[in-house]
């Protein structure tokens, strides 16, 4: 049985919030897609510190900030950049195919 990650359609590029973060649902997962100066990135949408929805947070450049405690992560690699975030967040590969943002899950 194949267990490899597969590219999944997430949202049309035209529907993304420009220079901001957009929330999408793929299956049972809430995913945050970030429109950054260096391209699109994606991560799990819930903060791994307190469980708040990062898609309601402040987004600037490549840094997403949790709306509850202002812990922050670099969306390119998931690294925590501000307390109380101490663990990397889970990020996913992204690509655009035919105007559709796809995420490898």
């Amino acid at each position: 049985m194949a267990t490899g990650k597969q590219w999944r359609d997430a949202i049309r590029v035209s529907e993304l919030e420009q220079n901001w973060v957009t929330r999408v649902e793929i299956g049972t997962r809430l995913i945050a897609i970030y429109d950054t100066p260096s391209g699109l990135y994606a991560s799990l949408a819930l903060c791994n510190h307190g469980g708040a929805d990062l898609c309601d947070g402040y987004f600037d450049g490549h840094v997403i900030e949790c709306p509850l405690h202002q812990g922050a992560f670099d969306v390119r690699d998931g690294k925590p950049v501000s307390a109380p975030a101490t663990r990397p967040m889970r990020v996913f590969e992204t690509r655009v195919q035919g105007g559709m943002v796809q995420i490898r899950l």
Partner: protein
Amino acid sequence: MSKAIVTPLTQALAEGKLTREELRAFMQRSNGPGLRHLALWVVLLACTTTLITLAWNSWLIWPAMFLQGIVLVHHFSLQHECVHYTVFRTRWLNDLVGQICGLIIILPHRFFRYEHCDHHTYTQLTGEDPELIPLPETFGQYLLYLSALPYWKAKFTEVFRHACGRLSDAELRFIPKVEQQAVFWDARRMLIVYGAAVVAMAATGWWGLIWYWLIPLFLGEPVMRFVRMTEHVGRPTVAQMSENTRTNIVSAPMRFLCWNMNYHAEHHYVSSVPFHALPRLHEKLKDHIFVETGGYLAAHRDILRQIMQRKSGT
């Protein structure tokens, strides 16, 4: 489906008190407002410092030190904003200014940051909110709190406990293991800086820092206790943000001093909103929160009324 926790913000969005577009606009940050406010802040500090110098050989040094103290203790408000990264857009500027504020008021920045996170998670919930100030049971307890003596006792105990490498049970709940050593070293560094200042004063024979900094700090702290009581004390100890927090409408000088933290309910609703946008957020949320239009004094009248009612009810 994995679900986000319910926060005041998610509630506000779900209930239509705030749209996503408005939220995005309110959260926008820049360095300009913070730097301008900070520049005026330094000018104000220079003025109160000058007053102490001018009053050096007279009894007027005491009111001058009190004025200096009022400004000094409001470094707490600035540090609080830095904890939320809502003073400057540049994140390291918030860290730097927050560290300096913490040094001035003897409140290590990293520790305060973690403690304050739990205050936002468990606002006004007895036994869970580490910053909860209980409604005093008697007028004597009210005055004791305002004296700041219990505050300083708690703060000094806290700093020495951390410098000795220990955390209380409550602190163990909100400081992750990976940060504990850093918290301990923050406390040690703070004690070293204060110790070095004392040694330097003894070596030079110039004890000015006592008169310009430490005595004013202790004289001013009751003012900060007075302000801090107005944020939650006397409000219901429940999770509903519309109930458990008080916004106080205060004068422009007080708003300047407290970096707009009088808009406290708005801040708790959306803590990512920078200090300079809180008055605009107030206009949006004022019908959904508890607002004390009479300011700090009216808030204290409410607190005192509740203390007296409790006393007469027993």
